[in-house]
């Protein structure tokens, strides 16, 4: 019998190791199911945006000023149409003074957080990040500089900004101010006027306190309208006994382009946090229980909200629900003006804005807000602050990002720029302006321990009820609470 010697065995083991290492390191040879990427570097779509221009290694910038690096990618700012204006802003700013040289670093949005984390880990973090929303700030919470002392030192005044919005950015550790109001995104209802007309329904209310069909504009009223606007293949609506829920072609309601989590979609039911006031206990606020029960019933019992499979179907534009023309009402934020229109070549429709309904006698309009923030690792805080104030004051940047200005005196001009994108459609901007008075405080994206993991648990909860019929929402929420508590308990201490 052939017996292997010890060196042969060692060589065999080494050979196997090399085979595994090399196979793990490359997917170019073969794969069981299309090329699989390596574990260390998951394959992603190649970045559309390169770092531009090349970062300055050291020393003063070309204008003789202190170099301040500005990291763009965590929120808006990476679209091809936005890069030119950002570069133009930096060039104009650098030419306008000699104290600071603003150096841009623009990275692909889908990878921005990972790139920034890697830069922080490597000790090569930028000075300014943004525009960035609450969620981005939560992820980098421990790395953000408290701006309050700098604001006080420089006697900075927030022109035209609601003081509540200034407080909104006290999101850092121990209530540190981590941003200056720049842009706001109130939420409200977008509705397809053509579908309303077809169903013989009047337009939705645009003023707080208006009645709809003689009744208060509240959750019950919204539910009944949404049911009437849900239609099957035979043309029966969801209030009809002949309605066939297996053949729906038009839906009444959804919350689209939120942050894909349960707490975002039902944030118009009220405001609260999954983290109790003690900062360590998980809780399920009452409005969440009410909201998720309503959504679950809306999907599976009354059928006016699409299931996940229906959302990703061609009928609802493979995720572009409202733009498909087959969703009647969509609760979303001002940023949705980017994508509200159906794709070119498909049926166009008239749409309008409406106020959020009363839930338990109160209106809540979930708010998103963008800002610029300074990382505490910056070696040039004063120069970074100077650049940041110029960025926040720039009307050009607001226009570039399509963001509603936090400064109320600039809002009309911004609205006019959006109107230009919808010729022939009269948008009632009093709706988003009015909804700014009903923000969700605490915000639905407010911080939780181990934020990203906690959010993933919320997303898993949402996905479960949207994909599974007959889910017991109360039991699922209890499980969610337990899961969140486990995450909070295991979270690294700040």
């Amino acid at each position, binding site marked *: 019998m052939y017996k292997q010697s010890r060196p042969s065995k060692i060589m065999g083991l080494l050979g196997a190791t090399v085979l595994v290492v090399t196979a793990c390191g490359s997917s170019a040879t073969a*794969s069981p199911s299309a090329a699989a990427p390596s574990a260390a570097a998951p394959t992603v779509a190649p970045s559309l945006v390169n770092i531009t221009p090349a970062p300055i290694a050291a020393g003063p910038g070309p204008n003789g000023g202190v170099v301040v690096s500005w990291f763009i990618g965590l929120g808006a700012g990476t679209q091809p149409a936005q890069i030119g204006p950002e570069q133009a802003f930096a060039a104009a700013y650098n030419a306008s003074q000699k104290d600071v040289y603003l150096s841009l670093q623009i990275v692909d949005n889908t990878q921005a957080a990972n790139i920034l984390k890697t830069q922080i880990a490597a000790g090569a973090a930028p000075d300014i990040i943004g525009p960035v929303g609450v969620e981005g700030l939560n992820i980098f919470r421990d790395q953000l500089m408290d701006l309050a002392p700098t604001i006080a030192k420089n006697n900075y005044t927030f022109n035209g900004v609601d003081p509540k919005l200034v407080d909104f950015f006290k999101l850092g550790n121990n209530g540190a101010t981590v941003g200056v109001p720049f842009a706001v995104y109130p939420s409200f209802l977008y509705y397809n006027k053509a579908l309303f007309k077809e169903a013989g329904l009047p337009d939705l209310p645009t003023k707080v306190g208006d009645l709809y069909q003689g009744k208060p504009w509240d959750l019950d009223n919204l539910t009944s309208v949404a049911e009437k606007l849900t239609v099957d293949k035979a043309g029966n609506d969801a209030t009809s006994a002949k309605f066939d829920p297996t053949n729906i072609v038009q839906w009444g309601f959804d919350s689209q382009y939120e942050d894909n989590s349960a707490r975002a979609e039902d944030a118009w039911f009220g405001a609260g946090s999954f983290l109790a006031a003690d900062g360590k206990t998980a809780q399920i606020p009452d409005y969440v229980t009410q909201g998720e029960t309503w959504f679950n019933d809306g999907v599976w019992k009354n059928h006016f909200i699409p299931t996940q499979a229906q959302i990703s179907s061609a009928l609802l534009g493979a995720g572009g629900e409202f733009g498909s023309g087959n969703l009647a009402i969509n609760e979303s934020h001002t940023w949705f003006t980017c994508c509200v229109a159906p794709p070119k070549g498909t049926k166009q429709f008239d749409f309008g804005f409406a106020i959020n309904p009363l839930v338990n006698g109160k209106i809540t309009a979930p708010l998103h807000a963008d800002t610029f923030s300074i990382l505490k690792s910056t070696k040039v805080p004063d120069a970074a602050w100077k650049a940041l104030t110029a960025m926040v004051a720039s009307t050009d940047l607001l226009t570039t990002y399509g963001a509603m200005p936090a400064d109320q005196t600039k809002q009309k001009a911004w609205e006019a720029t959006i109107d230009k994108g919808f010729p022939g459609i009269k948008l009632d901007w009093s709706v988003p302006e009015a909804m700014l008075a009903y923000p969700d405080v605490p915000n639905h994206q407010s911080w939780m321990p181990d934020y990203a993991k906690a959010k993933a648990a919320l997303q898993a909860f949402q996905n479960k009820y949207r994909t599974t019929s007959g889910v017991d929402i109360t039991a699922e929420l209890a499980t969610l609470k337990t899961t969140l508590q486990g995450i909070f308990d295991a979270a690294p201490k700040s």
Partner: protein
Amino acid sequence: MAQSSESSQISGTPIGKGRWHMNKSRREAFWGMVFVSPWVTGLLLFAAGPLIASFILSLTDFNLVKPEAVRFIGIDNYVHMASDPLVATGLLVTLKFALISVPVTMCASLGAALLVNSNNLFGRNIFRTLFYMPIQIPVVASTLVWMGFLNPETGWLNQIIAFFGFRGPDWINSVTWIYPALTLFGLWGIGNFMLISLAGLQSVPTSLYEAARIDGAGPWKMFRNITIPLMSPILLYNLVICLITTFQYFTQAYVLTNGRGDPDNATLFINLDLFHEAFRDNRMGYASAIGWLLFVIVLILTVIVLGFARNRVYYAGGES
């Protein structure tokens, strides 16, 4: 002394000014090393370096966004892994998928190779190209296409099933159907394995088939007693690579569920869990430990497969 003299003769003896004499086998070995040196250099720089770094990281609590707070924690990450339900889920999901996907992929690629190798197939080259073509499509793009194909409401597959009077399942969102769906995806990308198998098939001497035919062997007997044994090194190679890449499975699961592992963690492959730990939760130290666990598992499986195959693989001109 004698030994020293002999070894100096073997390894090389200076002859003339600045010239060394090497015997043939030494010369071949030398040039072999020269030619593989770029690959070895690459392996050392780009694989061994990160391997060592990741092992060191796995002994720390290195957090991507708190690099200043890094501490050496010994084997704590490895101990924690033993009680981490997500790691267990990740391994179980990967194993479940491997049990379905690897045999199906192996059989389908061999079947496709036999098909496009058949003299009876009209337009063989066209079919070879068609089977290989999906490999050229980026995984992300093909995953998105498959998502549309498998959509329970408007996807083609369920519409075909509906044509026969049945209601198709929710392929993507069902814990039961997600693995068959992913395996189906995978079949689209068997081109590489098919190509390697095809090369193996074409290297089998036709004289063996002729002799077997004269002896009265049918197609199945010839396949079992000639094709399979002579292709065994190729099949072994395909199996090992298939196993390794299955344990690396990531992109499709990431794209399909926005990286969440839905439904109900049914697509939380161990690599997706590793990605979550590293880049979502910032625990790079712990993620490195998971990476090493994965490495060891794949190494063990590879050694088992190679060991199992030792006496079952036929190497022409070598020991079997």
